[in-house]
Each structure stands twice: as structure tokens, then as C-alpha cells.
């Protein structure tokens, strides 16, 4: 379970990105975080694993409070939080396998990682995950040879091989086409269900969020404006989150018709 208490982030420029956010995410819940650009979505998930240092407030992952941890203890806790990024954030000049195995860096010593001599269990798990996302034949390709959808699937493997309790997902579909976006969202949600993972997914595409998640949080100017099931997102609610617009087309029911994930190529 993840619990945020009065989480505040004020940047050096004086911008208040988060204003005392309280949030509880139970085990296994997949949650979408929506809101306009600059609402603090990215800041919120980066404050949880402290890629951005929160100004004040508390973050509990299970029983551990994260904001006060020393750097060594923080590293150990980061292993329990897998992160998936907007532009995939794969290390482009490393192979797919190295990228996946880099999710184990928190568990192996420096020399093992430097010499790329990972424990057999890690290597097996990496192959299993790559097979699950249909990319096992790409293991020795360099990450920059992959298409966008393939890269994001490698990013998912990298997050999952950490064996996390929580996934932090930052705009996973922002640079993908509509079909691939759905495939990626479905994959993330399926994997969360298989493994009983909680997830916070930042997402711009409201319709896509509605299709896949159990709970939606609307963020506006660094404060929670909406917290409820996806069906409760009415045009009025979207207006309070984003401002005045015609929302009918955005929330109309989208049929979910495309096939299971196929390995591209």
C-alpha cells in the first residue's frame, strides 16, 4: 500500500507543483492520474521515488517512510518501485537484454553488473519477461534499433524485473500511435493484475485511461480535484480539471476491438 500525506513540492523558481496532496493507493490497484500539462502529475510520481525531492510531507510504501531515508536505504526502497517513462528512457546504446537486466542493478554488486555476469535466475527471468511481451528474439539488438512500441515493452520488462510492489508510470503512451498505445496500456494493466501490482499511471488520454483503470485521480494546479471511478468522469468533472471545452467526444465509449499484442515485425 502506498500512502501520501500532505506531499508538497515547491521548485526553486517558486512554482508550487504540489499543494499538500493526500492519496492512498491500496495493494493491486491501478490508478490513472489525469490533468492538464503542468498540473504536477510528473512531479507527483517522481516525488514518490525521490527522483524529485519533495519539499515536505510524507510518503509511505508499506510501513517504510521514504522521504527521510538515507541514500543507501533509498536505493533499497527504489528496488520496490518500478518506473516506466514517457520516451521509454532506455539506454539507447545498450542491448535490449542489458536494458532489461539494468532493472536488477539494485540487487547485484558492482563487478557483477560491470562484467554483465548476472545470476542465472535474473537472466532466466529477463528472458521470461521478454517472451511475455513478445520480444525474446530481440534480446541482443541494440535498444535504438527498436520501434516505439517495442521500446516501451522493453521499458516494462525493465520495471518488472525489479520485482516491484508498485509501478510508477509516466505518460507511457505519449509518443505512441493509438493502436500501440492501447496495446501498451492493456499490457501494463494485465501484468499488474497477474502480479497483484499497484500502479500509478500518468496519462493525457482520458478515454484510454477510462478503458483500463479502476480509479481516476484528476490533478489541477497541484491539488486533487477529482477522485473516483472512471465512469464518474462527466463533462462537468472534466471541465473542473481541464477547463471549459466540449467533452462529449472525449468520453464517448470507445470499442475495444484490436487483437492481442503481436510482436512487431
Amino acid at each position: 500500500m502506498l500512502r501520501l500525506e500532505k506531499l508538497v513540492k515547491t521548485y526553486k523558481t517558486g512554482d508550487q507543483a504540489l499543494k499538500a496532496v493526500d492519496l492512498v493507493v491500496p495493494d493491486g490497484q491501478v490508478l490513472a492520474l489525469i490533468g492538464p500539462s503542468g498540473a504536477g502529475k510528473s512531479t507527483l510520481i517522481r516525488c514518490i521515488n525521490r527522483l524529485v525531492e519533495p519539499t515536505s510531507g510524507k510518503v509511505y510504501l508499506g510501513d517504510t517512510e521514504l522521504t527521510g531515508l538515507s541514500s543507501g536505504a533509498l536505493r533499497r526502497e527504489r528496488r520496490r518501485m518500478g518506473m516506466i517513462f514517457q520516451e521509454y528512457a532506455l539506454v539507447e546504446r545498450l542491448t535490449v537484454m542489458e536494458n532489461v537486466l539494468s532493472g536488477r542493478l539494485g540487487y547485484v554488486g558492482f563487478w557483477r553488473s560491470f562484467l554483465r555476469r548476472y545470476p542465472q535466475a535474473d537472466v532466466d527471468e529477463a528472458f521470461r519477461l521478454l517472451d511475455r511481451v513478445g520480444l525474446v528474439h530481440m534480446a541482443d539488438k541494440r535498444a535504438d534499433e527498436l520501434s516505439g512500441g517495442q521500446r516501451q515493452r522493453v521499458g516494462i520488462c525493465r520495471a518488472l524485473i525489479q520485482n516491484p510492489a508498485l509501478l510508477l508510470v509516466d505518460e507511457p503512451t505519449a509518443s505512441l500511435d493509438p493502436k500501440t498505445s492501447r496495446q501498451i496500456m492493456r499490457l501494463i494493466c494485465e501484468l499488474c493484475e497477474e502480479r497483484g501490482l499497484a500502479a500509478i499511471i500518468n496519462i493525457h488520454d482520458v478515454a484510454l485511461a477510462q478503458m483500463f483503470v479502476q480509479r481516476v485521480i484528476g490533478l489541477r494546479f497541484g491539488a486533487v480535484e477529482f477522485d473516483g471511478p472512471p465512469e464518474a468522469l462527466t463533462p462537468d468533472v472534466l471541465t473542473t480539471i481541464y477547463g471549459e471545452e466540449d467533452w462529449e467526444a472525449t468520453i464517448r465509449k470507445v470499442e475495444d476491438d484490436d487483437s492481442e499484442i503481436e510482436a512487431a515485425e
Partner: protein
Amino acid sequence: MTTHRELDDMLGKGWRKPPFIRRAWLRYTILIGFAAYLVAAFLTIEVNWARVYEGLERGKQFILAFTSPDFTSRSGDIWDGMVESIIMTVAASVVGIAISIPIALGAARNVAPLPIYLACRSIIAVSRALQEIIVAILLVAIFGFGPLAGFLTLSFATIGFLSKLLAEDIESMDRVQAEAIKASGARWLQWINYGVQPQVMPRLIGLSMYRIDINFRESAILGLVGAGGIGATLNTAFDRYEYDTAAAILLLIIGIVMALEYLSGIIRARVQ
């Protein structure tokens, strides 16, 4: 309809890029001032044309020597000088690059904390401020004539060059790729190895090749102040007015530099 009146004013007017310096008088003052300075500066150069006329003959001999370079009569000296230069180059490059890498990491603001950053930047500033010849004169004074002084000079100069440029590459790397490695709970060294090193490796290899090239050329100069290498042989040839031997040495240096250039082109294309 104010917007329309504005638009009407603009239509049919033509468009020019706004000038870099907006105030016209300042713009023209700077331009005219610069031109005047240029003319004045040229007028202060004194040329002794009689001396140039005499010198032309020596210049001609020197250039003509390239048509009949003499590789043979001093071949022993040339060979020894070349071997010494190559040893100096390789040793100084290896040592210099090895020392440069940690200093470059320290001099990259996005990797190192402020005190380490300032310390490493200072080392780089000192190394860059002191020109090779000056360092070589100092080191020859300390260690005596010979390639040891040359080796130390080139190592020292390599640090300033490579650390600075590598640090700049580290500072301009893609932050998110490195962030992703950090988010997995990696240690600092693992973070460098996985998140930073792959991003800067092509640049490091390219710069190293270029520095080897520079070190070899510098080793030919350092001999002039007694720091060993092919430069010492070249200096002797000049002192004895043996232009044909000097030409042979220069041709060898040009050949080796071109070979290094070709090699570094191949290597850089490979590591992209």
C-alpha cells in the same frame, strides 16, 4: 476590429529579420569602429622588404628540399626519434586519458557535487592555461633533456583537453536515460556504468583518437625545447641546415598524422 486594422498595416510592407543589434547608431558605430581598427592594425605591421627578398632564397631551398628528401643519410637518427616520439605519444595518451576520465566525471555538474566540480574545473583550467611549450621547458628544467619530460608534458596537456570536452559531453547527455537507471536502485558506480558511460562512449573514443593525433604532432614540437622525440632530430637537422633530412622528417610526420586521421575516421564510424 482592431486586429484587422493591425493586419492591414502589415500587409504589402515586406518583412526583414530583426537586426541582432536593434539600435542603428550602435550597430553602425561598431561596424565602422571594427573596420577602422582593422586598417590601423595592419598599418602597424612593419615589413622589411629587403629582408624578405633575402629570405625568399632560403625559403626556396627549404621547399625545394621536399623534392629530394633524404631519408638515408640520417636514417638511424630518424628511426630513433620516431620510435621515441611514438612511445611518448602512446604512453602519454594512455596515462592522460586514464586520468582524464575521473576528472571529467568530477567536472560535470550533473554528476558531481559542487566542491568536487570546482576542484576538477580548476585542474582543467590550470592544465589548459599552461601551453605545452611552457610546461615542457619547466619539466625539462626539472627532469633534464629527454623523452621523460615530453611524456609528462603531453600527459598533462591531455588532461586539460580531454577532461573539458568529455565533461561537456556528460553535461549534455540525455538526463532521462540516466534517471531510469537511478530509479532502479543502482549504486553510483553502476549508474555511471549503465546510465552515463554508454551515452558518452563514442565521444570519448573520438576525442581520444584526436588527442593521440595531437600528441604525436606535439611530440615533434617538444623536441625543439629538448623534450626528446622526433622533434629533437628535426631540430638538429635545421641547425645543420640539412633541409633534405628535415624534409624527410616532415614528410614522415605528415604521413603518420594522415594515417592516424584515416584510422580515427574508421573507428569513429564503427562506434556510433
